[in-house]
Structures are given as C-alpha cells and as structure tokens.
C-alpha cells in the first residue's frame, strides 16, 4: 500500500508530527508566523481525546504546558520571537524542575515585534541563553517540511529521554512554505516515552539519582505526589541551599546533555570530502547554500556544506575537525552573526570566517553565497 502523501506547510507538518509523537496536550497563544500549528491541533486534538488550550497570553501558555507535561502528557507549544521572550522565565522553570516539553518557535524579525511576517534566524541565542542561569539546551533546525515533521518527533523523543524542554526553531520560510510530505507509518519513526517510576508512591523521589542522571518522572494524577519548585532542590523535590546538593544537581542537569552529545547532535555533510571551503548553514539558508555549492562546484571551486541540524548543543567537535582541513568557513544566516561566533569559537583561529548576514526580511539568496565563496583566500 502506498503511503499517505499531502502538500503541507511546515507549520502544518509540525502539528501532524506532534500527533505522531503522541502529543495529547497543546497550550499556546496565536502569533504570526506560527499560528497554523494551533489551527491544526485545535481541530485534531479533540478527535483523539487530547486537550487544546488557548491561554490568555504566552506566559500562561508556557505555564499550562509545564502543568500538562507534569500530568504525564506529551506537551507542545508554538510561538514566535516575542512569545519566546515572554516564555523565558517558565522555560527556566522547566529546565530546573526537569519537565519534558517541546517549544516550537518560528523565527521572525526582531527584537520586539520586529517584522511579524518576515523570515529570520535571530532567536538561536535566545533559545540558548534567553532564560537565566546555567542550563543545558537542545534546539533543532529543520530545513524542509518533511524534516519539520520528523524533527518534532525527535524533539519529543529528546524531551522525554532527557526530561527537559526542547526547542524546535524553524525560520519563517520553512514554517510557511509548502512541500510534499510523505507520512511515516506507525512504527516507522522511533517514539520514546519518559521512564515511569518503578517504586511505589511512598518511596518515590522525583530527583532520585540512584536511577541515573535522568530520574524517572511520575505523572500527577497517577497516585504519585511530589513537590515541584523553581528553587534548587533535594532528591524529594523540596528546596535546599546545601552546597553539595546544589552543585551536584546543576552539574547533573548539564551532564544529561554533554554526556550524550554524540547521540544528540545531528548534521549533514554535503560535498565536504575534498572541500577547501565550507559553508556552515542551517534552516532555509542551507537550501540557498546547497544551490550555491552546486553552482560553485560547476565552476571548479572545491566547496562543500556542513548543515547544522542540531544547533544546541553546538557541533563543536565537527567544526573543530573541519577547521583543520578547510581554508575558510562561510556562515550565511538571517541575523547579524550569531552562528558565526560559535564557528569562530570552534575554529580557534585555524580558518578564515566570512559571514553573510541579512536582517531585512529577505532570504539570503544563492548568488550572495557564490560571491562570498569567491572571496575566500
């Protein structure tokens, strides 16, 4: 039997991907250019007994998301820059209380209201550092409609596996363009569910590290009760300022990600084998880069692309290795140089770095990248 196929927007694919992953709870507040996720899920979730809540604002939506997730649901919110700013305090709460959930943020122009309908890639640092304090971040960057579907599923898997909020960061172009999507069959993509407690309610502690760096999470309403707070906490969830607990807890929460970095970081290498120049690109900009690399290769220039699929944690190891091989990196991005700083940090002076930066609401076109490729000395 042939698979189901549809012609969808990135945002619509995100909604269907969430359903595939087992999402049964959505809390959000409509905002361009991400509203189509809400539109689809407000229609689809009630059909499967799920819940859709449009809250009074973005802050309330993030709070509801954490509540839904603690009640055992796979929970999604969708937003855009101004909403991501508002959600930050509660994203931090999700980090310290270790609450699995997915934040789908469509990047538009900013800061503030910026350009609601214009594409951007300027929220990559906000996803990482928007909330204060030390914390690990996972952020995924889809470049096509099909990949948006698949990355939402992966985002839920990572959230559930590592018990933390996970970001998906499409730019407005990926979120609003339409392409053919081939729906995976049930079982075709891996779907991970959080580990439930193996001990009875009386013995349960929500941060009990004898079960490893990612302690099992009980669902509220399933007979287990526990304390949840934004304060640094003891294994039973109650607040503490005891140095030995606080230091160990903070380090464990970051180690969950750093110790598994090779599994978490995904990337694509395109024509890099003999490349002397490497374009580092992500999201829709990687599609311009692919066009440019193909065109430059036809002119005999040895250039390839490293496509970032997992932006956080950053692919340090891969960029460091490339820095020893290529003469220069070109980093096209729809912001004023956020990824290029990370590339510079990894390259440690071993390769030239040239940015292409646009924040005028227009995509970076292949011609701009081809021109820049020719500037590498």
């Amino acid at each position, binding site marked *: 039997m042939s698979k189901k196929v549809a*012609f969808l927007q990135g945002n619509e694919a995100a909604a269907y991907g969430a359903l595939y992953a087992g999402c049964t709870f959505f809390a959000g507040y409509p905002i361009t250019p991400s509203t189509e996720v809400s539109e689809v899920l407000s229609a689809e979730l009630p059909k499967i007994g799920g819940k859709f809540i449009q809250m009074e604002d973005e802050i309330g939506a993030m709070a509801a998301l954490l509540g839904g997730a603690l009640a055992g649901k796979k929970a999604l919110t969708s937003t855009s820059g101004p909403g991501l700013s508002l959600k930050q305090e509660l994203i931090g709460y999700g980090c310290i209380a270790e609450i699995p959930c997915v934040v789908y943020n469509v990047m538009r122009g900013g800061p503030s209201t910026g350009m609601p309908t214009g594409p951007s890639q300027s929220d990559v640092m906000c996803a990482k550092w928007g909330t204060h304090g030390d914390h690990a971040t996972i952020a995924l960057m889809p470049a096509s409609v099909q990949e948006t579907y698949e990355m939402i599923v992966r985002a839920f898997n990572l959230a559930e596996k590592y018990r933390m909020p996970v970001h998906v960061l499409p730019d407005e172009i990926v979120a609003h363009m*339409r*392409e053919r999507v081939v729906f995976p069959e049930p079982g075709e993509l891996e779907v991970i569910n959080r580990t439930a407690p193996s001990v009875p309610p009386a013995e349960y502690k929500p941060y009990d590290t004898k079960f490893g760096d990612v302690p099992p999470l009980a669902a509220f309403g399933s007979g287990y009760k526990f304390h949840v707070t934004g304060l640094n906490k003891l294994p039973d969830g109650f607040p503490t300022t005891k140095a030995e607990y606080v230091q160990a807890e903070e380090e464990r929460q970051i180690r969950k990600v750093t110790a598994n970095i090779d599994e978490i970081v995904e990337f694509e290498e395109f024509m890099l084998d003999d490349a002397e120049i490497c374009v580092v690109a992500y999201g829709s900009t990687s599609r311009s880069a692919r*066009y440019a690399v193909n065109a430059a290769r036809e002119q005999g220039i040895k250039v390839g692309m490293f496509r970032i699929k997992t932006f956080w944690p950053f692919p340090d190891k891969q960029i460091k290795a490339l820095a020893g091989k290529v003469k220069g990196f070109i980093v096209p991005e729809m912001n004023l140089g956020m990824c290029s700083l990370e590339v510079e940090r990894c390259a440690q002076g071993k390769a030239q770095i040239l940015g292409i930066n646009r924040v005028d609401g227009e995509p970076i*076109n292949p011609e701009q990248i081809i021109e820049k490729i020719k500037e590498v000395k």
Partner: protein
Amino acid sequence: MARYELRFSGAGGQGLITAGIILAEAASIHEGKQAVQSQSYGPEARGGASKSEVIIDDVPVDYPKATKVDALLALTQEACDKYSADLKDGGILLYDTDLVTRLPEGNFKKIGFNIINTAKNEVGREIVANIVALGAMIALTGVVSRENGEKAVLSRVPEAFLELNKKAYAAGFEKALAASK
C-alpha cells in the same frame, strides 16, 4: 524539465497564495514532480502587495524562492512594478489589461486580458479571478497538463462551487491561449 519559477502577484485578498498552492499541488501530487510553494505578504489582511512563488523541478528543489522568474502574473500595477524586475529574458508576463496599464520594459512576452472582469462578468463571481489566472498561467507555461491543473483546482474546492471553478479555470485557459496568438 529544468527548474521552472513562477510568481503570482497582486494585492492581498485576491487569492494569489491559493493559486500558487493549487499549481504546486498539481505539479507535486498529481504530476509527480518536485515543487515548493512559498509566499510573502505584509501584515495587512487585505491590500498591500502580495506574492506567491512556485518552483517546479524534476529533482528536489533546494532554494525555495525565485532567482530568475520564468513566468509572472501581475494583477495590480503596484505588484507589476514591484515584482517584474527579475523576470527572465524570454520569460512570460501575464497581466490584467484593466489594472496594469504601464508595462515594464524587457525582453519577455507580455500577454494580457481582462482577468478580473472575466471572473466577474463571464464566469459570474469576482472571487474566482485567481482560478481564471491559474488557468491562464497553466495554458501559457504548460508547466502541468490542463487536466492535472483542473484536478488540483477541484480537489481544493467545496462541492457547491465545483462548476463555478471549473468554468473559471476553462475561461482563463482559453482566453490566455487566444491572447497569446
């Protein structure tokens, strides 16, 4: 076929994004080609210059926006002025003769007829002007077959409006052929 770029432009609310989606669906779902549809529009719900682009290719489409446009539809003077600069040499400009009176200079075919008036007075409803325009673009470019274009139109339209849209599509197709002779 090689990469082929189409742009539908006019004012917000004229249904140009829908026309682009239907063409891309015709190519991607009904004709088995690779297609990407994208759009750009202002924050207004109505008015303002609006465009919808469709890239069709035999191989997966990388850059999803137009580089050099093969075929451009312009339903307003503002859109024609704003979006015709990157029309390819030898390309096609389809325009509404009532609304676009100053045509751009350039080495491309300029084909016009009264698109909106055709929808309003011959088909019967102005709201199907986008389908008249879609039929015309398919007739002029041959980028999908007439039949697959019609299939894609009808699969998007509620039952009660099938005949209206069928008539609009046919009117656009025929009038464009006549105008290009």
